[in-house]
């Protein structure tokens, strides 16, 4: 059998092409391609070489339309035993090809050629073409003549012309030889035999029959020659004669041959016009051809020779003729029968050819799987041959099947279906899969077939000595089908891989990745110290909006843009190393050594650092791959380059993503990561990575070590943050803010220090002080151990993340960002910047340039026509805060670096699009690792009230507001010696309350407590109030030893409001009153707020400070506790009584100075009385002062009583010991609002001793406020107001 047969094959002249001497292979191929262009020589072109010697037997030669066809057989072919039967099988001409420079001796060339021709007995024409002859050879050769044809060196076109002429000559010679042959055959006849004919001697009858047959056969052969000569009409005539004769002699084989020739003649005659009728005709005739070939089967010599191959060839010829998609069914039937016939073929090479043809034809009608099946059969036949060339062929055939079985090598796919640039873009659209990859996942389930194919490729590649193909096949096998391969098989593949790589030069690349599986794990965000923030050029606070805002982690309103947010942008900085985490998996049963793995970056602006890694059996590992961006631009990372098993491969993340997606859908055998025990990972979306120019980089160093700052609750401490610029660009802008929990513990940050240090040059550093105050530990988790074990609590607090962080936004200057279409040239030596371009109007807003403010504003001048503008101007540096609004010339020009924001109103109207290329800034997060230890713990607070009567003093008008040194008289004034609270005997303690704090010290250090009460309005407190100094010295320090507790008393005074008015009582009134009206709810709320504010105000003035050791000091935060303690009796603490009473002595008739100025505070105890003894048996003039603290007029009934030590009333009654002058009871007086009245009287003490004076008043017509203050329950109840007791010591003798 012969390959590549078709019906027209019968009309093609075979020419052997033989290299003569040494011809370099490349040149030989070149010469051959030149020859191949001369496959068809039109008859019209050969007429000039043709001379008719005698009358041509080809009577109907179509000189105008016909042509001679050649088939060049390089290297020739051995003569076929069937060449008598089909003349086209003969080699009818021999062409020698000689490359003159390598064979200088033309004589030997001729000898060689002649001897080579001897083996082609059937050849009618011999020519030897000698290319590129030298001059001497040209001379020499022209003498030789004969068959040697020299092709003088010339350009390709000339040579082809030359060759064409030669071929036309050959064609003409062949035609003439054919004529000669035919004439001879017609006259003399020839003996034509085929291997089918019996070799045994013939009996007489058979001899007779053979003679008849001979005629038929010769007619058939003449027909063949007519066909070769390109005269189908003549051929047709001879064939029909032959058919008749052959039928008569039942020479079916030749009959079929003649029929076949007839079809070929028919087709040639029609010259490729295919109409259905002719197609039907051809089909009909060929079926008969096939039938007759089958008929000619002779059992006798079936072992030796069989016409089967002709039958199959005819079948293939018909199939090729019909081979169109519409006729697929018919073709399939033909091919099926041909394939069935293959089993009867004796010759293995025949079977090979048959299968090749079947596979090709199946491929043509689109039956790719069938074609692949037969290709595999071919490969198996090749592999049976056990030699290297056959193995190479097998490998190539198998490589063709890989597409149908979906196991093709990446090399073949990447050429057409997957352009390389797509790799970069495709990974961006994350989860989406390409259609063909989906299909290949589905088809990848034919694992049984696929593994067989890959194994065979591996086998043939090994045998063919193609290590790269073997490596690739083994890699594909291992990567795709490892779950189906036993560990031993996996080991075998691994060793196949390494064996193959041993034969490869190091650094060989292969398109097909082997192991491990690599997927993207994560892109670690920049460490918080290097965080990059996009600058919003529109705002001064450019960092705003870059951090997630709002209290919610998830906001439904932002859902619409989740697409963008999921595809977050990643910014890398030139020169700063970055890291990418990838996960590797080795699901196979051997230890995998990855010699090197690094990120594969196609954009070329990235240096990747390789690492090597060992993966044990069935394991996965997350590794960090790092690299450095080298230039500005986008970066795409489609995968990793892996050097493993001696070959470098690129592993694309997208492939593994598809694989994993397939695994979830059950399309892929197994998930390599899961079977290695790795957790399922959500799809890591690939961010858009862009590289920006170098940015400054601040490195923080918190003074006092990197460890945590250990503070006791409430402790105040300073610390230093040292910032060094480790980048290559100066920091020009900086902003400090706080975030995180417990922000208020940072009392102050020296922002100014940092500001003053700008611009911070690379390498320089700045130290900024920060003042901290430790916060209160949560009351909910009182951890008794916390104080004892600092370490434990430290750990806990780190976990809590309760420490605040200092966030520093900083940036370098941006570059000037001009609108599109504007060219900027300069500045030149004079600082001139030339801006040309086309714009309608644009403006650069105030530019911040270091410490200078610079503004440029210009527009198109009216005198410049069109849209084209050209304005030359000078940029100058303007001193602080100056702006320039007009074009102008400025002196003192230096280098111009401008950071600005600008936009073009004309281009888009959207400033953000233009200004978006401002280089980003950075965010530095300095976590203050504060560990707060439990310090003093607060146990309880309660309010104590005491009543100590005041002395009625001598009437010494001592204006207190003058006396700022009245410490000795202030209540609770401290003597530094005894550290005791002293009570001024002339003041008493009316209205004085003490806040008692019980504190315990669970720590192992000693605390000193000092309490201070600040007075809110010191300027007003001009009356004997303790000022700041007094407070500081005021209270003694209390020392609390470890594990001890102590009580600290805080006197509460000076807090009373000056006036008792209704606003305060709104709430109480409403609450008490039977009808709470709705319209008062506002004022009620108001009042409540006011009350709360006053309480807070009160509390905030109480400060409990502590000190421990040398450098720990702080403040106790017990506001809540105090509030709780005060809540109940806040009214008594805060509010004045409606009336205040005071007594004083009037002596020597001196009028007391007006003590109570209107602006006097609520201090009711007007203790300005001077010291002086009251003598018995002496008239003591006194006066009582009653002050109305309300805003209403109060009518009342005042009475004064005097009691002795026993508490007996000593003014009235029988045993009265005190005589009096004036009125002591039932004094009806009216006091206007906020005024006071005096009532004078005199007492005459009969007995020396201690007396107590008490003034009391019964208020008439009390209003609601008074009632509320007095907490009366019924409106009828009289309101009784009692003043504080006053003590009078009477001396003398009884």
């Amino acid at each position: 059998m012969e390959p590549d047969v078709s019906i027209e094959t019968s009309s093609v002249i075979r020419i052997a092409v033989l290299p003569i001497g040494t011809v370099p292979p490349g040149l030989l191929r070149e010469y051959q391609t030149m020859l191949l262009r001369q496959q068809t020589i039109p008859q019209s072109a050969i007429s000039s070489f043709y001379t008719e010697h005698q009358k041509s037997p080809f009577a109907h030669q179509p000189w105008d339309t016909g042509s001679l066809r050649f088939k060049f057989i390089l290297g020739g072919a051995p003569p076929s035993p069937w060449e008598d039967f089909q003349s086209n099988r003969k080699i009818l001409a021999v062409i020698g090809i000689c490359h003159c420079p390598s064979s200088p001796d033309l004589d030997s060339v001729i000898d060689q050629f002649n001897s080579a021709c001897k083996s082609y007995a059937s050849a009618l024409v011999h020519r030897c073409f000698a290319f590129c002859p030298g001059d001497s050879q040209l001379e020499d050769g022209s003498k030789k003549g004969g068959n040697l044809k020299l092709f003088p060196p010339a350009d390709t076109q000339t040579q082809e012309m030359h060759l064409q002429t030669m071929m036309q000559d050959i064609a003409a010679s062949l035609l003439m030889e054919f004529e000669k042959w035919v004439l001879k055959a017609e006259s003399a006849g020839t003996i034509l035999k085929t291997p089918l004919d019996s070799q045994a001697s013939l009996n007489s009858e058979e001899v007779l029959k053979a003679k008849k047959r001979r005629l038929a056969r010769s007619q058939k052969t003449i027909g063949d020659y007519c066909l070769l000569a390109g005269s189908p009409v003549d051929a047709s005539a001879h064939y029909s004669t032959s058919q008749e004769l052959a039928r008569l002699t039942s020479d079916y084989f030749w009959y079929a041959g003649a029929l076949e020739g007839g079809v070929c003649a028919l087709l040639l005659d029609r010259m490729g016009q295919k109409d259905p009728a002719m197609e039907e005709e051809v089909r009909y005739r060929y079926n008969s051809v096939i039938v007759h070939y089958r008929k000619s089967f002779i059992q006798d010599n079936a072992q030796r020779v069989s016409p089967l191959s002709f039958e199959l060839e005819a079948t293939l010829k018909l199939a090729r003729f019909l081979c169109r998609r519409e006729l697929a069914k018919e073709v399939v039937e033909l091919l099926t029968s041909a394939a069935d016939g293959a089993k009867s073929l004796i010759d293995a090479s025949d079977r090979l050819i048959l299968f090749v043809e079947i596979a090709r034809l199946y491929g043509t009608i689109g039956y790719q799987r069938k074609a692949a099946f037969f290709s595999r059969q071919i490969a198996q036949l090749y592999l049976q041959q056990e030699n290297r060339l056959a193995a190479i062929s097998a490998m190539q055939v198998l490589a063709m099947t890989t597409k149908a079985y979906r196991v093709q090598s990446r090399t073949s796919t990447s050429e057409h279906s997957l352009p390389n640039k797509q790799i970069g873009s495709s990974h961006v659209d994350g989860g989406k899969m390409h259609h063909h990859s989906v299909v290949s996942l589905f088809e990848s389930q034919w694992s049984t077939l696929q593994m067989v194919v890959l194994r065979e490729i591996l086998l043939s590649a090994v045998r063919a000595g193609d290590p790269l193909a073997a490596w690739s096949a083994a890699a594909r096998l291992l990567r795709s089908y490892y779950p189906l391969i036993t560990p031993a098989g996996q080991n075998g593949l691994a060793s196949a891989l390494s064996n193959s790589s041993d034969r490869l030069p190091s650094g060989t690349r292969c398109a097909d990745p082997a192991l491990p599986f690599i997927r993207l794990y994560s892109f670690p965000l920049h460490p918080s110290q290097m965080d990059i923030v996009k600058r919003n050029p529109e705002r001064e606070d450019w960092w705003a909006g870059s951090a997630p805002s709002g209290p919610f982690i998830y906001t439904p309103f932002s859902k619409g843009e989740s697409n963008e947010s999921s595809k977050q942008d990643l910014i890398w900085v030139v020169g700063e190393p970055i890291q990418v985490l990838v996960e590797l998996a080795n699901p196979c049963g051997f230890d995998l050594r990855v010699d090197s793995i690094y990120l594969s970056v196609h954009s070329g602006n990235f240096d990747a650092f390789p690492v090597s890694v060992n993966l044990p059996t069935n394991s996965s590992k997350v590794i960090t791959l790092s690299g450095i961006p080298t230039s500005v631009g986008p970066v795409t990372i489609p995968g990793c380059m892996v050097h493993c098993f001696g070959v470098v491969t690129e592993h694309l993340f997208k492939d593994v993503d598809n694989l994993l997606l397939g695994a979830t859908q059950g399309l892929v055998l197994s998930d390599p990561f899961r079977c290695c025990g790795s957790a399922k990972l959500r799809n890591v979306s690939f961010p858009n990575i862009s590289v920006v120019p170098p940015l400054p980089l601040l490195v923080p160093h918190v003074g006092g070590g990197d460890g945590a700052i250990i503070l006791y609750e409430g402790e105040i401490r300073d610390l230093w943050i040292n910032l060094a610029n480790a980048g290559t660009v100066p920091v020009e802008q900086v902003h400090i803010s706080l975030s995180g929990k417990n922000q208020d513990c940072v009392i102050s940050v020296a922002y100014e220090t940092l500001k003053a240090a700008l611009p911070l040059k690379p390498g320089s550093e700045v130290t900024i002080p920060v003042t901290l105050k430790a916060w209160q530990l949560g009351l909910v988790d009182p951890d008794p151990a916390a104080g004892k074990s600092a370490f434990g609590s430290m750990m806990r607090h780190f976990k809590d993340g309760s420490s605040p962080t200092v966030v520093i936004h900083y940036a370098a200057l941006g570059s000037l960002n001009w609108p599109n279409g504007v060219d900027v040239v300069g500045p030149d030596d004079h600082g001139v910047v030339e801006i040309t371009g086309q714009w309608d109007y644009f403006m650069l807003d105030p530019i911040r340039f270091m410490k200078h403010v610079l503004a440029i504003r210009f527009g198109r001048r009216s005198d410049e026509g069109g849209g084209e503008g050209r304005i030359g101007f000078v940029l100058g540096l303007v001193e602080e805060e100056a702006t320039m609004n007009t074009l102008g010339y400025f002196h003192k020009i230096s280098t111009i670096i401008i950071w600005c924001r600008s936009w073009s109103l004309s281009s888009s109207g959207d400033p953000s699009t233009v200004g978006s290329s401002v280089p980003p800034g950075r965010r530095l997060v300095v976590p203050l690792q504060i560990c707060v230890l439990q310090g003093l713990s607060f146990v309880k607070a309660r309010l104590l009230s005491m009543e100590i009567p005041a002395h009625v003093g001598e009437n010494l008008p001592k204006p207190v507001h003058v006396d700022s040194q009245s410490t000795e008289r202030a209540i609770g004034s401290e003597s530094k010696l005894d550290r005791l609270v002293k009570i001024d005997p002339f003041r008493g303690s009316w209205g004085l309350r003490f806040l008692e704090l019980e504190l315990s010290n669970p720590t192992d250090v000693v605390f000193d407590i000092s309490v201070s009460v600040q007075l809110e309005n010191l300027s007003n407190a001009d009356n004997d109030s303790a000022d700041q100094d007094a407070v500081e010295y005021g209270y003694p320090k209390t020392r609390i030893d470890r594990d001890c507790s102590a009580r600290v008393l805080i006197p509460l005074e000076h807090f009373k409001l000056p006036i008792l008015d209704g606003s305060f009582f709104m709430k109480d009134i409403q609450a008490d009153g039977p009808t709470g009206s709705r319209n008062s709810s506002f004022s009620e709320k108001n009042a409540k707020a006011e009350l709360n504010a006053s309480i807070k105000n009160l509390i905030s003035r109480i400060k409990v400070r502590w000190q421990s050791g040398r450098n720990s000091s702080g403040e106790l935060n017990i506001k809540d506790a105090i509030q709780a303690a005060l809540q109940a009796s806040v009214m008594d603490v805060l509010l004045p009584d409606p009336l205040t009473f005071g007594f004083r002595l009037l002596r020597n008739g001196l009028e007391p100075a007006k003590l109570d100025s209107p602006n006097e505070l609520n201090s009711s105890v007007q203790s300005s009385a001077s010291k002086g003894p009251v003598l018995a048996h002496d008239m003591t003039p006194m006066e009582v002062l009653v002050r109305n603290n309300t805003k209403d007029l109060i009518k009342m009934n005042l009475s004064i009583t005097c009691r002795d030590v026993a508490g007996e009333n000593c003014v009235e009654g029988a045993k009265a010991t005190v005589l009096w002058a004036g009125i002591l009871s039932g004094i009806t007086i009216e006091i206007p609002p906020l005024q006071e009245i005096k009532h004078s009287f005199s007492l005459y003490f009969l007995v020396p001793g201690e007396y107590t004076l008490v003034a009391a008043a019964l208020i008439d017509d009390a209003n609601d406020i008074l009632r509320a203050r007095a907490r009366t329950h019924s409106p009828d109840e009289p309101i009784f107001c009692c003043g504080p007791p006053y003590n009078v010591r009477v001396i003398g003798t009884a």
Partner: protein
Amino acid sequence: MIVCVAVVGHQNNPLYIQSFTEADDALKLHHIVHCSLDVVDERVNNPKKSGSTLNETFLGLLYPTENYKVYGYLTNTKVKFILVTTDLDVRDADVRNFFRRFHAAYVDAVSNPFHVPGKKITSRTFAERVSTIVKSFGSSSAG
């Protein structure tokens, strides 16, 4: 006798392949089933050439190969059933009947809520049912 039945998904992915021969010819049968997809594809793509109407699920004899005959059946969801038999004279009615029962078994199998569409059918019940149908095919044609 039926030597092999197969279910092939709409993406030409094998969902179920079961051979009923003792001989170790699984690979060969895989190839036969795989190759039959060419014919199915062709019939699906050129429905008018196949001679059957669009609604016809039974594709008839796909092709004879070596000693086997391959029959096909295409569901509405483009799932293919392939039957490989060694019987030389098979009545179409028998094959139709077989495919109808096979289809019912398949529908029941994929109706299992735990079955993931597109995954290989691993149900043992389905396998048992199929082998019953296959056996009864042999007996009914014999009898």
